């Protein structure tokens, strides 16, 4: 029985292996390339094998990357957050350093270190192929999910908000749909992880559809003043409104009953 089983397994493997060998060889090459890039660009903080580095005080210098998955790498490197230029409260979004191929290689290497979500497929976040009506319904649902889960930190229009100790929830408008999806999936920096059990993939897609709709929609009400809420409105009321009107008051008071400046000067 045992022999039979072994034979069967061996036989099946022999039959199926050639087809897989190609991809696994590609995969292996990608992981190898990723590891080389990792040793040069990431290992200083994250450790030679992605095991993480602790400071002398025992806090994280660079966190372990053994179970973060490819999606986290694609997000952090793909938005320029990694590699960090300097330690700080938070890794800011900046110019992207690695090419797409290099990012994919890094992601493949980090994914090979353990578990974690893969880079999402395009159909998970794109509304391509959906009818106008379906998209409209998706946007409405996405708006409500957005207001319930995201606005508390990212603001009602995705303009961003403050977090403790110099951290911040960044502006999330004009961000690539894939990166928004990955952010929800992996919860970068101080963000919560919105797993598929928490916000199912179709709801993630709805949030992305809503954000894209906000990008497309005209500003119905004029200049939005950064969409930051009442603080910027108050500044405009004082600087623009009151400043302008006081200027006019000075102008009116500076003019006497005389109808022309010439006469005014002649009288003086």
């Amino acid at each position, binding site marked *: 029985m045992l022999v039979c089983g072994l034979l069967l397994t061996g036989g099946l493997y022999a039959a199926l292996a050639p087809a897989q060998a190609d991809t696994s060889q590609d995969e292996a090459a990608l992981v190898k390339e990723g590891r080389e890039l990792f040793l040069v660009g990431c290992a200083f903080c994250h450790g030679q094998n992605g095991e993480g580095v602790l400071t002398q005080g025992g806090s994280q210098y660079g966190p372990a990357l053994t179970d973060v998955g490819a999606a986290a790498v694609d997000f952090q490197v793909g938005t320029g957050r990694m590699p960090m230029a300097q330690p700080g409260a938070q890794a800011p979004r900046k110019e992207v350093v690695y090419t797409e191929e290099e990012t994919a290689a890094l992601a493949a290497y980090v994914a090979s270190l353990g578990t974690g979500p893969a880079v999402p497929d395009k159909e998970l976040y794109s509304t391509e192929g959906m009818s106008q009506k379906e998209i409209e319904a998706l*946007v409405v649902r996405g708006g409500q999910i957005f207001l*319930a889960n995201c606005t508390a930190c990212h603001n009602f229009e995705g303009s961003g908000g*403050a977090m403790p100790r110099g951290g*911040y929830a960044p502006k999330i408008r004009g961000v690539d749909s894939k990166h928004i999806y990955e952010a929800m999936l992996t919860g970068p920096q101080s963000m919560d992880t919105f797993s598929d059990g928490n916000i199912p993939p179709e709801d993630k897609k709805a949030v992305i559809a809503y954000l894209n709709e906000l990008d497309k929609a005209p500003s*119905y009400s004029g200049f939005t003043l950064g*969409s930051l*809420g*009442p*603080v910027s409105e108050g500044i405009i009321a004082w600087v623009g409104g009151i400043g302008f009107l006081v200027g*006019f008051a000075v102008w009116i008071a500076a003019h006497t009953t005389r109808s022309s400046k010439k006469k005014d000067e002649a009288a003086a």
Partner: protein
Amino acid sequence: MTVGDMSKVATTNGTTPATAKGGKAAGTIANWADERLGLGSAMKKNIRKVFPDHWSFMLGEIALWSFVVVLLTGVFLTLWFDPSMTEVQYDGAYDPLRGVHMSSAYASSLDISFDVRGGLLMRQMHHWGAMIFIASMMIHMLRVYLTGAFRKPRELNWIIGCLLLLLGTIEGFTGYSLPDDLLSGTGVRAADGFMKASPIVGSYMSFFLFGGEFPGDAIIPRFYAMHILLIPGLLLALVAAHMLLLVYHKHTQWPGPGRTEQNVVGYPMLPVYAAKAGGFFFIVFGTIATMGGLFSINAVWKYGPYDPSKVTAGSQPDWYMGWPDGLLRIIPAWETHIWGITLSWNVMIPILVMPPLMLMILMALPFLEAWITGDKREHHLLQRPRNAPTRTAIMVALMTFYGLSWAAGGNDIIAIKLHLSINQITYFMRGAVFIGPVIAFIITRRWCISLQRHDEGKLLHGYETGVLVRSPEGGYAEKHLPLPEGKAYALTARDDDPTPETVEEIDASGATGRSARLRKLRAKLAALFFADNVQKPTAEELHEAQHHAEHELHELESQIAAGPNRHGPAEH
């Protein structure tokens, strides 16, 4: 009545009303009305009423005219707004919310924004107008305080003004809450929390206001009644009283040649002041309309309907509630638990104690100053802020406290825009709200006294001409020339500071007991109030200065006549 008729009336000083000459229609109607209502004699007096001219006297007008704009746009909004918390399914023009369940109030706010022609413009004008209304009341109040216009006999009008500021704030808050969007609801939720922070009666007050547990379905209709009926009625009545008192007291004026405590120098109501004020109305209207047309304010469709489980970053009140919000943000989490009751000092102090306290300080300022200085005279001539250094410094200290608390209310926006840590801003503000006003007080007071000294210098030594003269010895000196008479008059047309009784005088009088202690306290405060002030020069000093100036002028002229440049530039 037409302007033409009025100008005829105004040319006489007779005691009987002028009648329109000729049988023109307007004149006939005017005559008809006059014979029945007595308008002629009433208006004859008032349309020639003189108002002094200065830009700072028009700040209150901004408040008046923006209030008119808010009333007009508000009437438009009432035609479409449905103040009901009945749940409806949205079916309007804004796609991203279609089908969402919401209150009628919010749905009608969306309809005003997207389906009513001109509705969004009216909504934005109403909101911008309200922001400007309260802001202009505040700068008007600063002007009145800093120029001493609150002094006898205008103390009661000062109090009416303070009440207008309070009512305007409450009016603004109820209006902010009406659209029932996420921001409104968060504000109402905060107000609910503030009420519940009152010891013992808090939860009763909350249930009373909301007609049950928050949010209930009564709060929007209740706020609506307050917002469009109760508070505007009170505001209108107080505005009327404020302006009647203004007419009764007559407007204050700056000192200058021909201006005394007994007269008012300026332009008559018609035609000059009516044209200026009327024109200013259109400027205020135009400014608010432009803002409503160009700048987004409270884009309710982005916030979504209120739902107690949701909140957004950047949830702030409108600016006039920003300073208590700031104090709320920076106060440490102080709570006391006693007999099963939680006393939330962290909410009570910034919200339930500080705003009423500030209002009471504001209202008490005229009386406190009058008590300390012992000044019971009537004042119709204004004081420059520098000539009352302590008063000016008190207001600047209050403004500093206000401004810092206000900035703390935007701590999250400051943090993200200036890349700072919100915690560090909070720690800084905790110290700054105490230290800042003290520093501001000292700097302002010394600054005022320096300006007084500068004025004295100009009076006694003339103004700086910019003409440098080299003496035969080789030294350089700037020549000063005497001020023009009008300017010198304006600088000297002020009373010397009163000289209240001193502690020594009270001791010498042998008075004892509680009243004597109070008098001594007052004497000490008065000494501090007037300390280091510069009094205006005496007539002898000015006379002497004049002589000196004449002498200098002669000297300068002879120097020029004898100098190397008498035939033009020297040849090389």
